């Protein structure tokens, strides 16, 4: 009697959620150790928050640390695709790692959803139907800042970025819209922590402003040294240089700095308000834009999984491309190359209740698409 009741109960449960019955396995490769760990931890925490909120028990997420090393990321990706048989890979922070991992993974028919890196090569001729970028194309935020720089009358900007794909994309993007002259253009080593040489060059160049892209610990080191060097040229950057993950460490030197972002915690929409409050409650800190990209990526996957089984690749791909989810960015859609078309804002660093954070002061682009989409035959 008992057994029959249990079987009936089991059957009842099995029929209660037909669309969700298919298990979905997600592999997350991200940077959880070393100088770039803050970024990966935020992506992971944002992603897992969305999965937790959904209450979806059929989704399994495996998280592994790439230590910001391309060779390690490739090994983990192979293991996840070949032996763990994941349906979707996601999580990579750095463009050089993405370039090493993504082409191989999508070539084998596995989906890859980028939570951060958006190298230009993957947005243009090498675009792939199984590769979706939920964050941005690398040039975007820099283009927005280049565009904004024209409006505030800087005519001689010194630009600085690390020498890796996202760094060259950054300065290319800035120069695409910036109309003034360049006081100098410098590429530094990835992971460099001492910027005395570059600061001396900035001082000698007679620049009226400095634009720098130095994500993670690099930006913290640069800003600390810059503020101590007796130089008063104003700085600007993309959101990465002044987001929640670094502001605390940079300190008050950042107040008033303008930076560009496709998201801000003060964006006025219901999904964003719910997200910021939930993130604070769960992790006891404010979310960064990396966490936001993780959160949006997870919600995109959840929206597609509710519509189609991941085993039916064509249907699942179409569901991803539709992007029918409540993005905390307000509106979100994919272009032909599976990269976002979105608004990009200019923010200013402020101090609010004793905590450094950002507020939106302008909109640089509305429905902005990247410059490489035209090279993508999709």
């Amino acid at each position, binding site marked *: 009697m008992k057994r029959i009741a249990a079987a009936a109960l089991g059957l009842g449960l099995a029929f209660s959620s037909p669309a969700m019955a298919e298990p979905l396995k997600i592999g997350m490769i991200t940077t959880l150790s070393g100088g770039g760990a803050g970024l990966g931890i935020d992506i992971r925490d944002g992603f897992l928050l969305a999965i937790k909120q959904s209450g979806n028990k059929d989704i399994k997420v495996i998280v592994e640390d790439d230590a910001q090393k391309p060779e390690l990321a490739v090994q983990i990706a192979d293991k996840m695709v070949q032996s763990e048989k994941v349906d979707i890979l996601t999580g990579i922070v750095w463009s050089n790692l993405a370039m090493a991992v993504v082409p191989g993974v999508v070539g084998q028919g596995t989906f890859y959803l980028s939570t951060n890196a958006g190298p230009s090569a993957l947005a243009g001729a090498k675009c792939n139907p199984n590769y979706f970028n939920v964050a941005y194309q690398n040039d975007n935020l820099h283009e927005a800042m280049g565009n904004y720089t024209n409006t505030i009358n800087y005519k001689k900007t010194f630009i600085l970025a690390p020498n890796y794909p996202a760094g060259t994309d950054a300065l290319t993007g800035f120069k695409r819209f910036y109309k003034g002259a360049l006081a100098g253009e410098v*590429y530094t080593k990835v992971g460099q922590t001492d910027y005395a040489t570059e600061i*001396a060059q900035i001082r000698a160049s007679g620049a009226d402003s400095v634009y720098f892209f130095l994500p993670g610990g690099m930006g913290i080191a640069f800003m600390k040294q810059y503020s*101590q*060097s*007796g*130089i008063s040229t104003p700085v600007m950057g993309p959101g990465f240089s002044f987001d929640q993950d670094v502001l605390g460490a940079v300190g008050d030197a950042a107040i008033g700095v303008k930076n560009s972002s496709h998201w801000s915690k003060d964006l006025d929409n219901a999904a964003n308000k719910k997200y910021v409050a939930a993130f604070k409650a769960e992790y006891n800190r404010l979310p960064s834009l990396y966490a936001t990209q993780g959160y949006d990526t997870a919600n995109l996957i959840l929206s597609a999984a509710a519509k189609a089984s991941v085993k039916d690749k064509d249907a699942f791909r179409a569901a991803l491309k539709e992007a029918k989810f409540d993005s905390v960015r307000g509106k979100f859609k994919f272009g032909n190359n599976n990269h976002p078309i979105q608004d990009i804002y200019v923010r200013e660093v402020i101090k609010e209740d004793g905590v450094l954070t950002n507020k939106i002061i302008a909109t640089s682009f509305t429905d902005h698409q990247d410059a490489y989409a035209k090279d993508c035959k999709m």
Partner: protein
Amino acid sequence: MSSALLIEQVLNGLQFGVMLFLMAAGLTLIFGVMGVINLAHGSLYMVGAFACAAVAAYTGSFWLGLVASLAAAAAAGAIVEVTVIRRLYSRDHLDQVLATFALILIFSEGTRWVFGSFPLYLDIPPVLQGAVSLPGGAQYQLYRLAIIAAGLVVAIGLYLLISRTRLGMRIRAGESDREMIGALGVDIASLNTIVFALGAALAGLAGALVGALQSVQVGMGEPVLILAFVVIVIGGIGSIKGALIGAILVGVVDTMGRFLLPQLLTLFMEPSQAATAGAAIASMLIYIVMAFILAVRPKGLFAVNA
């Protein structure tokens, strides 16, 4: 190019070199006296930086933090020597590399466990904040000048210690012939511990000084460690003088390369190409210098047992 810029860059090179010297001095002593390749030296640098940041945050005093960094790194060094390194003297270098690599992982994960993955913030002490004017009109960060001064004081102190004291005599004797000084009745075990702790304290001091300039984070020691190895190979393993000259050479060459190469390449390239190509060559420059020096003097500039 103005002379002010040139002066500033030379000072930057010196400051970088002096910081490398603090790392390399300990490394070269440990290798010279004990014959141990200590990959965990970068972890001791990290321990110093974290100790300084933690104590400075708790007490509000950078100077107490500095004392704490010396004490913590020396203690960590002594504990590591007694528990791990002591068992490795008779083993070959592969075992030493494996064991000290394991120590890196243990130190890194242990630090992450205690302090978390986010970088800590260590303030420059108020007296050393800001910039000073140099002759020629250049402005220079005061704290960097203080690092140069501190490094030179340590260099002189080490020179006096090694050439004028009984401990220094034993260290020199240990470098020439370990077995013989043991046979002569010197307590070689405690000499090893003292040398290891001294090297660790110097690394910890470097970590604390640099921590205030950069950010204090897990894994901060490894990039410096690689450069410190380049320094001791150039300078000659076991030689403090070699470490000083090698460190300043590496510091100045690296800084000037990063600064001058892109400018040189703009003479026959587009600016943005010159910037990327120059940055790429500059990052190889010290290794090219090392290869050249090793080709001419295979044991380094000031080899101890040449």
